[in-house]
């Protein structure tokens, strides 16, 4: 099988396994809702304050909810020694990582696209005016989050305190990407398009994705096979 085919097989396997039980997606979505709700108690959301904070709020929700999904990515393979079977399969580790990262990307993106309109309804935000650029920002930042999250999921799958270690490792690495996503999202949700003033954030997101995708693909063999 070619590389692309292997990636697709792993991705479809993960998506099928997740969609049959829906346990991680459901948990992630309910968690996103709970956090969205909690924010309304944390401060009194008036329209002006919401506009400046929306990017930060959304990405905190996305990052937390995404972590729940990413945690399951390799943990799902532990029962029945599926992980050993996957590693022993005649497929390069990079294909395995890429397939899993794409499956996670689709799942996290789905949760985000459900949480985003709810956020708009709850906090009375018209977020659709720059929808194209907003989607671009969300796709880029979510990919950054899932590619590092997937390799760290592999890194933490066999260790103590797995659920805690993933965000402890992943969030500090993600800070540049999350910072860029928060800045862009706040401005786009408020209805301002990307201009010369903040296009550098977009470049930063693209750079982050490119660097960490490359580094992850190079190092995944070491993580999985040793």
């Amino acid at each position, binding site marked *: 099988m070619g590389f692309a085919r292997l990636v697709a097989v792993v991705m479809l396997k993960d998506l099928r396994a997740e969609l049959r039980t829906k346990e991680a997606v459901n948990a992630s979505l309910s968690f996103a809702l709970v956090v969205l709700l909690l924010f309304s108690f944390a401060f009194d959301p008036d329209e002006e304050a919401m506009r400046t904070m929306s990017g930060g709020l959304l990405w905190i929700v996305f990052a937390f909810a995404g972590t729940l999904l990413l945690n399951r990515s390799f943990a799902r393979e532990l029962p029945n020694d599926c992980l050993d079977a996957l590693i022993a399969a005649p497929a390069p580790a990079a294909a395995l990582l890429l397939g899993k990262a794409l499956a996670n990307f689709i799942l996290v993106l789905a949760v985000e696209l459900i949480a985003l309109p709810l956020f708009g309804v709850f906090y009375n935000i018209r977020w659709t005016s720059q929808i194209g650029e907003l989607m671009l920002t969300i796709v880029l930042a979510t990919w950054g989050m899932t590619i590092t999250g997937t390799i760290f999921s592999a890194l933490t799958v066999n260790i*103590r305190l797995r659920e805690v270690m993933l965000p402890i490792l992943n969030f*500090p690495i993600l800070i*540049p990407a999350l910072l860029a996503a928060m800045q862009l999202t706040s401005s786009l949700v408020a209805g301002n398009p990307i201009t010369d003033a903040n296009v550098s954030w977009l470049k*930063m997101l693209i750079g982050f994705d490119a660097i960490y995708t490359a580094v992850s693909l190079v190092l995944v063999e070491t993580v999985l096979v*040793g």
Partner: protein
Amino acid sequence: MRNKILFGVGAFAMILLARNIYVIAGLPEEVNQGAIFKIIFFHATMAMTALTCSFVAFVSSVLFLITRKFVYDEMAVAVTEVGLAFLAANLITGSIWGRIIWGIWWTWDARLTSALVCWLLYAGYLMLRRAIDEPTQRATFAAVFSIFAFIDVPIVIFSIKWWRTQHPQPVFWAGGSFPPDWAAIFWLNLLALMMVAAVFTAVRLRQEAAQREIDSLRRMAHAL
């Protein structure tokens, strides 16, 4: 012999530090900031030492993944711990300086935030190590994470710089105003702190080597 060199370097570093503190105390006060400005001799040099440590940790981690020799893993953990201590000292001295000059202990300015993020990255590295028991797996995973963290350092610094900046610009480069005799003391102090860091690392390295030996003896005892 190794002990003697180690103690010799350590003693020399202590004497150099004491001499530097004596000279720094005798310098005239800076025009705008007064005596507190002299904290720069420690504050900035500690940051440079910490950055050097993170670079050494990166190189050791890459070497470990290539050669699979545990001495590089030991080097990486020793130098990361020392670097983390220096970065913590850098954050604390910066906080003291900020309290006197800006009137606040902490502000979310570019360099303060970057330093804190780097501290969290390498604290995560040490936590990851503690969570893994099997030595080969621990060394491999820690090396991978160390590479991720080191690549993140410049990205963090640039991104947060774009985000905001309040920290004074460096005074050495590009039309700086640091007098040359002060610069000489600054570099001497950097040398002293680097030597302290090297001695700490060497001591920590020996602990790691001893730990590895104990572990292998224990395994042997179990096998018998």
